[in-house]
């Protein structure tokens, strides 16, 4: 090829290559799902339930149907195929089936000539409800047997006892992903009974499976296309507008667009599972864990979505990155009339990390050990069995490394600033310098990589070599994390070609890339690109030698290489949770420094330091971007982010009252990366997308505890929790 070595090509792995879609995004020219436009398209709108639990007594769509400019009004009776959808369990009706089971559940959809008419038509629909008592207490739901899944993990000797016992109950509230880009979809009928769907998604193939079933169509009739997304963090893993907009397009024979506004977005996507966790840690005099007992309930809300997998993730990580030979976990995820829960960055590992790290701090205090020392003594390392599943850790896991390096990072100067905007309360001027107490807290977090429990997890990629350069065809979704960038870097490193294009492929032209979630895409789609590039390089070298030019290689047309990449297989565990359910692990450490005004309960997070296990830093700048962004989300969950429910109704479905950190709230971050190669994936790289949201929250809460002495068993921590009123 024209550049047989990588030395002369810029943008290879290890560099902080700028992203290829950056210019379009900076100039306002990048097409997000909510920007898609076809002249003559219809606008869709959705009627939703105002109750968390109610019987639909009357639904009269006549006033909407007869409104000028309205082209279709559809209800559950209009669903052509399977009545229900869901990733694992198909339990959610496409539209209300006579009983609304959560606040905001879709009831009917309208397509009209313009947005105003669509909205007015929805408002004109006559709907009468008989409110029913909502189930809102997860413990009560569990007692009533309303479980999506229950898991039992038993390992070791239940009668083992330690000399130090720490028992406590922890609670994590509902966090919302709150991506800035709203849910949006454009459905374009093809005139032959099928359609093309352009919908904000994290996994077009799983959407496709559910959509064709509900539309009663052959798979070929529907093509799901990746579109530009304004963030995801798990909110886009499940169906939102997809089936609705498709039905409207098929009924009207015209393109239809649905875009949710912010309030509707809060109602229209799954949230992080709130959890109640009862923990008992027993340790010996040296602080070594002897036994961990956990009983936990997660609230899955009205429909299953990915609750089965979230529970497993939580249950297997209840102990964290620590050794323990005796573990008992009883965990349930239950059905209530609260908003449906599903995937959010961390996927169950976040909730338990808050609990187990709080426990480790309490053990350390009881034994007079430094928080990092107790973690060092128990650190889970390669070759050790996972405390919960017994799976022997394969590949790299620098648990001691992330502890030691974190400890070596200098703390910020122990000086309370003069500038009030840098004190708790900020420009609210609440807090004199003399009222500020500083605290430091630590936490470690463990996460699995990719999917688990025997799921057939793979990613398909097709490379196409032309005289102009290389094309990477994939259905993998870029949500902002930089997958597009590192895939180009990987391909460049193998093939030495500078000019590479990322070509989004739809469900009809390529197989699944799997979800953009589970910290998996760098290793899976990156792994697929890597494998395909190696095959392509070897094939070309064989046919043309090492120095052939692109023109010569492609003289008879483009050369393609398709790959379906899988990670090492995982297994379903046995009935006691024992086995090898995971494909790999990633560990990280966080240290938080906070300034607190204990009298008012106000917190300023001064800095969060982190050490991240990365395997191989394919793009250091992009990694740091993920770490800093994840820490900001962890900071939000620590002190300000919470969806407040009353009888299952969300009281704060807007950005006025669901508070996410501004630039004046987000902490400064110092990051260090540890490169110990993973045992699979491109160049030994590991997925790091979730680690920063997992242990940042517990580190911040630990720091607030250190500053105030308050127990703080709940996140988010509210001012009244710190004050104690």
């Amino acid at each position, binding site marked *: 090829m024209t550049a047989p070595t990588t030395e002369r090509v810029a943008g290879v792995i290890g560099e902080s290559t700028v992203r290829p879609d950056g210019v379009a995004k900076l100039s306002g020219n990048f097409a997000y799902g909510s920007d898609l436009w076809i002249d003559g398209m219809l606008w869709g709108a959705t009627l939703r339930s105002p109750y968390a639990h109610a019987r639909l007594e009357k639904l009269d769509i006549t006033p909407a149907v007869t409104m000028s400019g309205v082209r279709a009004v559809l209800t559950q009776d209009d669903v052509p195929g399977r009545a229900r959808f869901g990733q694992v369990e198909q339990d959610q009706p496409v539209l209300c089936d006579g009983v609304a089971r959560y606040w905001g559940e879709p009831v009917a959809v309208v397509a009209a000539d313009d947005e105003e008419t669509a*909205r007015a038509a929805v*408002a004109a629909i006559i709907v009468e409800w008989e409110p029913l008592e909502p189930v809102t207490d997860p413990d009560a739901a569990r007692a009533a047997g309303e479980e999506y899944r229950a898991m039992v993990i038993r390992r070791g000797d239940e009668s083992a006892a330690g000399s130090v016992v720490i028992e406590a109950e922890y609670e994590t509230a509902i966090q919302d992903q709150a991506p800035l880009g709203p849910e949006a979809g454009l459905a374009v009928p093809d005139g032959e009974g099928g359609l093309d769907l352009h919908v904000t998604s994290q996994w077009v193939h799983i959407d496709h499976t559910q959509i064709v079933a509900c539309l009663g169509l052959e798979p070929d009739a529907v093509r799901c296309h990746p579109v530009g997304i304004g963030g995801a963090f798990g909110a886009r893993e499940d169906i939102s507008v997809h089936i609705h907009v498709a039905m409207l397009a098929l009924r009207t024979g015209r393109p239809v667009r649905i875009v949710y506004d912010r309030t509707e977005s809060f109602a229209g996507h799954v949230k992080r599972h709130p959890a109640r966790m009862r923990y008992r840690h027993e340790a010996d005099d040296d602080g070594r864990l002897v036994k961990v007992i956990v009983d936990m309930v997660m609230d899955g809300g009205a429909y299953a979505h990915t609750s089965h997998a979230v529970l497993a993730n939580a249950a297997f990580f209840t102990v964290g990155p620590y050794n323990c030979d005796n573990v008992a976990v009883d965990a349930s995820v239950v059905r209530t009339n609260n908003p449906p829960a599903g995937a959010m960055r961390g996927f169950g590992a976040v909730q338990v990390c808050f609990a187990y790290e709080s426990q480790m701090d309490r053990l350390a205090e009881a034994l007079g050990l430094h928080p990092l020392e107790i973690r060092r003594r128990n650190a889970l390392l390669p070759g050790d069995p996972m405390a919960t599943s017994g799976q022997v850790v394969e590949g790299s896991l620098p648990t001691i490394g992330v502890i030691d390096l974190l400890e070596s990072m200098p703390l910020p100067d122990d000086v309370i600033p003069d500038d009030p905007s840098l004190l708790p309360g900020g420009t609210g001027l609440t807090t004199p310098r003399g009222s500020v107490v500083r605290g430091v807290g630590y936490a470690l977090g463990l996460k699995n990589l990719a999917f688990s429990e025997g799921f057939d997890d793979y990613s398909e990629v097709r490379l196409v070599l032309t005289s102009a350069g290389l094309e990477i065809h994939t259905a993998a979704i870029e949500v902002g994390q930089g997958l597009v960038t590192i895939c180009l870097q990987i391909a460049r490193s193998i093939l030495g070609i500078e000019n590479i294009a990322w070509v989004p492929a739809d469900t009809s032209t390529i197989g699944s890339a799997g979800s953009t979630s589970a910290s998996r895409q760098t290793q899976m789609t990156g792994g697929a690109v890597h494998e395909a590039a190696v095959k392509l390089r070897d094939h070309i070298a064989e046919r043309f030698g090492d120095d052939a030019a692109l023109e010569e290689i492609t003289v008879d047309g483009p050369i393609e290489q398709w790959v379906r990449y899988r990670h090492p297989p995982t297994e379903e565990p046995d009935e006691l949770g024992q086995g090898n359910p995971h494909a790999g692990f990633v560990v990280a450490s966080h240290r938080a420094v906070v300034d607190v005004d204990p009298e008012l309960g106000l917190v300023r997070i001064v800095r969060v330091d982190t050490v991240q296990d990365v395997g191989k830093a394919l793009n250091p700048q992009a990694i740091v971007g993920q770490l800093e962004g994840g820490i900001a989300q962890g900071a939000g969950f620590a002190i300000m982010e919470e969806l407040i429910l*009353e009888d299952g109704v969300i009281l704060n479905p807007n950005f006025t009252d669901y508070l996410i*950190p501004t630039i004046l709230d987000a902490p400064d971050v110092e990051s260090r990366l540890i490169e110990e190669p993973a045992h699979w994936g491109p160049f030994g790289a590991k997925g790091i997308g979730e680690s920063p949201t997992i242990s940042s929250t517990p580190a911040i809460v630990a720091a607030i505890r250190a500053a105030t002495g308050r127990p703080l068993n709940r996140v988010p921590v509210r001012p009244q929790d710190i004050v104690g009123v």
Partner: protein
Amino acid sequence: MHFVAARDLATALDARAEHPDAELLAGGTDLMVEVNLSHHRPTGVIGVRACDELMEWRDGRIGAAVTWARLEDGSARALAQLARTIGSPQIRAAGTMGGNVATASPAGDGLPWIAAMDGSVEVASRERGTRLIPWNEFFVGVKQTSLAGDEVITAVVTPDDAPHVQEFAKVGVRNAMVIATVSCVVAKGADGFRIALGAVAPTPIRATRAEEMLNAEASISDLVLEEVARLVSAEVRPITDHRSTESYRRHASGVLARRLVERCRAA
């Protein structure tokens, strides 16, 4: 929809008299939220963003269309402090004192300052001319004012002897774009201390019992400060809602009042 861009007050008053259904629009930071999220559809709008008389600002008189961005640079210390905390730079460039007063949200950031200054709201109508309404007669309930349907808010007026020593503080869970959990303005004039609070009652309030106690004391010891906190906590009437609890708001009111009295004392 009928839109009148009123460049002078006479135009605004005429429009208000002739179109009783028309709504006043300054920065849009309240009205447009209703348009966008509540799908409110005005049939008539009178735009006063660039109305000459309403944009005037001098000592003792803030025109209704003066933006928070301008007020950040004013000489009234607590007003400048609170202006800086309103929303965001984008909100401050558009939002106005007059809009804050007209909306009369219990948590309106500007309102406790008006109360602390013993200020009045000046309103005008074509038929009845101008009148001055003391703050405690203007703000009558949650988002309720005594503004008549044909009146326009023209200014917030403060007495010539309004205290120069004044301090502000506001509790919010986030450091920008946050609705006050509790806000407080304390001022110290020739007649003594004034303690005003927001977000702890349907309207802004003055903690008169705390003021009375404080102004009867010859010197302000730590014990007196503690008593200020206790009296303010007892005097406020906060609620529990999705933003905070009654007990926290009560507690924070006392703390803020005490701290601000201390700041004024030191000034």
